[in-house]
């Protein structure tokens, strides 16, 4: 049994702690005051949910990826805002409006995800090309529906509380993200679907010969990815009060960065939700810390890239042992004990 710790998890944990400490020191405490922690916790769910979607797609193997996440989230928000606002008044029936909004948004997102899954599983399109196309399709639909302008989501209290409210000091959106991550993490780790998904991702051919229902599993995976994007769309709508077709265009690559930095194998078959969660928080903390310190936004991209490279190095090479060796060699060489003298 290796006594060496899990390097990826350790790296992510230490980055989180390091950035928290550095931020606290550099900002003289205001980085870790409750308001900022709540602010950061409220900013990261959108990205985290998109990263979960990408992780699901990647785990299914065969070059799986989902590039259409943010576009689907925006489409879900726009379509829902237009449809529900036209039928129900937000002021008069806030709870009904909220429920209807969430329902329509999740339905639209689920349909989009199933569409992705069918194109990939039935028609046999390569995931990257398929989701690239559906990304443009969803964005285009959102433009046509909204006329290119932003759509105001009605002023319903329960909906606003989802994005901005706090429960025991923790933002509701963060709780939603943790909930979704926990549920999907459990599905992936413990349910037959999850185990088969990783097996299929590792070796699609063997999966086919083992009799896995590949089409159903792929459609299910991409549908789940779409559903998670829908949740992200609801959170965006409730936090920003307005939805627009091109919100968060930079989120696509950031979500992929988060997923890769969580140790998810792009070729499929491996991914841990704990690491994904820590990866999301690490990137958010780093981004906020750089903003606090007042460094240029360009430097943030540089820092993220460096972090990714360090993570990949840690996964590939036994950095801890190398460091230990260097320490022993240069700083504290250990003298071998003198050979025991034989008597007389």
């Amino acid at each position, binding site marked *: 049994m290796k006594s060496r710790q899990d390097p990826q998890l350790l790296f992510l944990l230490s980055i989180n*702690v390091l950035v928290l400490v550095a931020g606290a*020191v550099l900002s003289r*405490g205001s980085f870790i005051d409750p308001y900022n922690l709540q*602010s950061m916790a409220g900013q990261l769910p959108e990205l985290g949910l998109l990263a979960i979607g990408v992780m699901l797609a990647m785990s299914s193997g065969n070059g799986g990826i989902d590039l259409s996440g943010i576009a689907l989230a925006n489409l879900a928000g726009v379509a829902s805002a237009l449809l529900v606002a036209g039928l129900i008044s937000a002021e008069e029936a806030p709870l009904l409006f909220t429920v209807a909004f969430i329902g329509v948004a999740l339905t639209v997102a689920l349909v989009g995800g199933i569409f992705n899954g069918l194109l990939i599983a039935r028609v046999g399109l390569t995931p990257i090309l398929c989701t690239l196309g559906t990304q443009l399709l969803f964005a285009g639909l959102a433009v046509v529906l909204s006329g*290119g302008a932003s759509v105001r989501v009605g002023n319903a209290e329960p909906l606003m509380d989802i994005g901005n409210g706090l429960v025991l000091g923790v933002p509701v959106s963060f709780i939603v993200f943790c909930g979704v991550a926990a549920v999907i993490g459990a599905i992936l780790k413990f349910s037959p679907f999850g185990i088969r998904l990783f097996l299929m991702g590792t070796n699609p051919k063997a999966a086919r010969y083992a009799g896995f229902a590949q089409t159903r599993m792929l459609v299910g995976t991409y549908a789940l990815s779409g559903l998670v994007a829908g949740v992200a769309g609801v959170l965006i709508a409730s936090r920003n009060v307005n939805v*627009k077709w091109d919100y968060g265009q930079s989120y696509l690559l950031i979500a992929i960065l988060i997923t890769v930095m969580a140790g998810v194998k792009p070729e499929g078959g491996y991914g841990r939700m704990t690491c994904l969660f820590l990866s999301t928080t690490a990137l958010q903390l780093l*981004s906020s810390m750089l903003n606090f310190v*007042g460094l240029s936004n360009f430097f943030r991209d540089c820092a993220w890239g460096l972090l990714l490279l360090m993570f990949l190095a840690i996964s590939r090479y036994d950095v801890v042992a190398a460091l230990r060796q260097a320490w022993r060699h240069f700083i504290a060489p250990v003298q071998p004990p003198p050979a025991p003298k034989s008597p007389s």
Partner: protein
Amino acid sequence: MKVTPISAAVAAAVLAAAVGTLHAQDKQTIATVVKISGIPWFNRMEVGVKEFAAANPTLTATQSGPATADAAQQLKIIDDLVARKVSALAVVPMDPAVIEGVLKRAMDRGIVVVTHEADNQKNTNANIEAFDNAAYGTALNERLAACMGKQGKWTSFVGSLGSRTHLQWVDAGAANAKKYPGMTLVDAKNESFDDANKTYEKAKEVLRKHPDIKGFQSSAGNDVIGIGRAIEEAGLQGKVCLVGTGLPNPSAKLLDSGAITAIGFWDPKDAGLAMNRAAKMLLEKKTLTNGIDLGVKGYEKVTVSKGPGGGLLLVGNAMVIADKSTYKNYLF
């Protein structure tokens, strides 16, 4: 083994926080947040912010902005600044609607909010416009019409379909062009996302689709450069008219070659100064009355009226339209 370094680090963080909160709050900070960093327009605005900072040593004035033209990234920066509890925010929104939520949180937290190029922004204490946007759009279009001989097809470019002021300019331009029955508007409101390269590609597409097009009215600061380059490459300078917002120095070469007919602008340095001055006045609890002098050229006699939300709308008089012969008077 894993627990000890982490618990030590957490203890260190708590200690640092305890030490940190003992320090008194320093100077007041006015944080300017622009649409996108690194383009000439907002580099010029930064000159104004730095000038303000130098003239006001009792305050800290900074400028930041996202690396890409994405409203979500600007939202993140503002979120973090609100968490950092700056004293005032001076924002040039990429999309006013997207940041309404965070600006409300800022105002609830006691932060003064001043905006620019967002006269539909509800959650702001004061929005500053360099001039009446409809008048500016009309002026640009009049110059375009004069060049086109009031005949022919023309099109318009905007930064994005969410850029409030750009839409006001091209809508006013379109309304003005209706006076001239010989002018036809085709493929209006092409989006450039403040990217000169994307604008160049789009302009080439438009020239291919409408080989007989006679005029372009553009809005974002880099659009004239992209479109001008496309016109020059096609050898159409002098035959196709281009009037849009742009800065004199970057547009100099294309103005001289005739690819750009005229540029309209206001000095972003003065706009930045005006925003920071207004923010400072609001921090000092002064009222902004009609006709007030913000102490900046073009904003000496600002008309103050009620804005869409609870805040004020300040309109200055800083419009400039320059062409080949006059742009050299402005060295930025």
